[in-house]
């Protein structure tokens, strides 16, 4: 039995279903991200685990006991908010001590634990400062320490980094991940930033309008998206309709271009129309070495994006983006020129819908 198990959970507000039949098992010590666009129900799902919302139907089990209807202050769950939610009238140390004081721990015990936590987040010099005297990143670290001080069974983070600027966001997410790993704590991390989700999670749950689209490791989600929603939401992607020519051989017809796909077209019949997807970085120029699929395209535009160069190609009347590493030796065709590009049969993904 999984450590935290969310089974058949749905949530309705009035007539609108915000979370629809959510099923997820999380192992102890696992770091799971909920990824999805705004309004897809990530926060609502998290709040049901925290106890701030009660599921309309379904069950939530934590470490073998049913917590579906347990009040939030009776669950042992740590919560981190986007707005930090530190108590403005208390110092850093008092904030961290709050949960321990509520639990009526002894003064010695509180003192020791607060020191431990302050050391964990490296804010030793700031212990007696008030929240308004700290930067956003420091405040969020305090809120992390405050949540961890009470030894929660699960740590819930609702877009904890969204209010911070880009640099801090990257360093703090690494810090959160390393603390989570070293303490072996189970965590759910809500974000709408795909890079964030892919970079720190053991598993990612991609959500769309209240439903789970796909659950998997970052590797699986990125390389083998099951639906066009996941494929489009995670990374950038070229999609096109194609007609099945030979289901057994994986041969498709994409607007007159023969394409070979390794991923299964087995379930399909000849003549079926499917959605195919190819990531921009899977294309290369055929003078660099040919792969299974070779085709000709017209260069429409070239954009430099720092470490990569994006080439917009017109292949068989369809626009494709191709990304190639930006290196000094790179030779690029000119806009309007024709060039031969290639991609492997593994790169051609068949999406469920």
């Amino acid at each position, binding site marked *: 039995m999984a450590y935290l198990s969310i089974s058949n959970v749905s949530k309705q507000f009035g007539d609108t279903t915000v979370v629809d039949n959510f099923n997820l098992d999380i192992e102890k010590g696992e770091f799971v991200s909920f990824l999805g666009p705004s309004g897809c129900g990530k926060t609502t799902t998290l709040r049901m685990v925290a106890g701030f919302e009660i599921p309309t139907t379904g069950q939530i089990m934590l470490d073998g006991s049913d917590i579906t209807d347990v009040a939030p*202050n009776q669950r042992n769950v740590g919560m981190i*908010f986007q*707005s930090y*939610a530190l108590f403005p009238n208390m110092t850093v140390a008092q904030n961290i001590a*709050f*949960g321990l004081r509520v639990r009526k721990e002894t003064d010695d015990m509180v003192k020791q634990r607060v020191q431990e936590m302050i050391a964990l987040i490296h804010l030793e010099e700031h212990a007696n400062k008030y929240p*308004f005297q700290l930067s956003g990143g420091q405040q969020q670290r305090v809120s992390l320490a405050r949540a961890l001080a009470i030894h929660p069974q699960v740590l819930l983070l609702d877009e904890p980094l969204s209010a911070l600027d880009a640099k801090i966001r990257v360093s703090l997410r690494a810090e959160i991940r390393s603390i989570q790993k070293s303490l072996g704590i189970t965590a759910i991390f809500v974000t709408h930033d795909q890079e964030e989700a892919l970079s720190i999670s053991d598993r990612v749950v991609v959500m769309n309008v209240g439903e789970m689209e796909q659950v998997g490791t970052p590797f699986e989600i990125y390389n083998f998206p099951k639906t066009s929603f996941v494929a489009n939401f995670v990374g950038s992607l070229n999609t096109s309709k194609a007609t099945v020519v030979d289901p057994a051989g994986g041969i498709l017809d994409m607007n007159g271009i023969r394409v070979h796909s390794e991923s299964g077209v087995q379930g399909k019949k000849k003549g079926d129309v499917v959605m195919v997807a190819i990531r921009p970085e899977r294309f290369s120029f055929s003078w660099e070495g040919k792969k299974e699929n070779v085709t000709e395209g017209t260069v429409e535009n070239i954009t430099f994006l720092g470490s990569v160069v994006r080439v917009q190609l017109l292949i068989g009347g369809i626009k494709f983006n191709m990304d190639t590493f930006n290196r000094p030796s790179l030779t690029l065709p000119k806009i309007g020129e024709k060039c031969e590009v290639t991609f492997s049969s593994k790169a051609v993904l068949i999406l469920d819908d």
Partner: protein
Amino acid sequence: MKLKFKSLWSWIWFLIGTLYFILPLYATLDFSLRMERDTIGFKAYRVAFADPKFVETFARSNILAVITIIVSIILIVPTAYWVRLRLPQARRIVEFITLLPFVIPAIILVFGMIRVFSTPVRIPFTDIILIQPLTTLIVNKFHLGTYILIVAGYMILALPYMYRAVDTGMRTVDVRTLTEASQSLGANGFTIMWHVILPNIRASLLSGALLTYAIVVGEVVLASFLGLDTFGPYLFLLGQHRAYEPSALTFVAFLLTWAAMGIIQLVSGEQGQTAGAH
């Protein structure tokens, strides 16, 4: 050039506005200092403060103000908290209700109260009395019922100020998220209210309290119609019979109000900076 011209006009308007407020006040002060012929002195103040009636009514008004403030806080803080937390859709209705005292004159309020609370509640079509009127509730010659009535009335008059102050305070500290944060740390309702909510809306409570104080201490209509000897009616009466003392007391009342305003400014400014440091 144009800008300078504009700012010159703003200064002129500002000056006119200031004079409009300051001149009457200055005249009052000046007048109050001239009780003795040909000298400037504080005689009017000495006489006014020495009147036992002044001491009695002023003390009574102060006690009423304190009771009104305490009961208002006990009623309004949980209400505003509940509305913010659980009934955000009721905000508009509650805000509308809190604004009613601005629209309904005190005289109407007091007549309504007297009408309702000084007649007994009877079983319809009979003479059997179910509940005696509140105004007849007298304990040891002390008109408890009437005092309850006037405190209730004052609470209504002070409602817009108190509710707004508390609600604004709760908005600026985002009580909803703070409540959830405390809940997830295991706190119960009492701990949240006492250790998290109240300390963080201290400045708002104080400003609501001081505004309530200013209203209650100077209030005339409710007190005179309910027949209670408080400071407002006393000052009013004094004004009809004496010349210098009312000016002295009016000026003192002004100073008190300004002191209250000053305290509000000071505390809310400090709260903004230190967010209510201990």
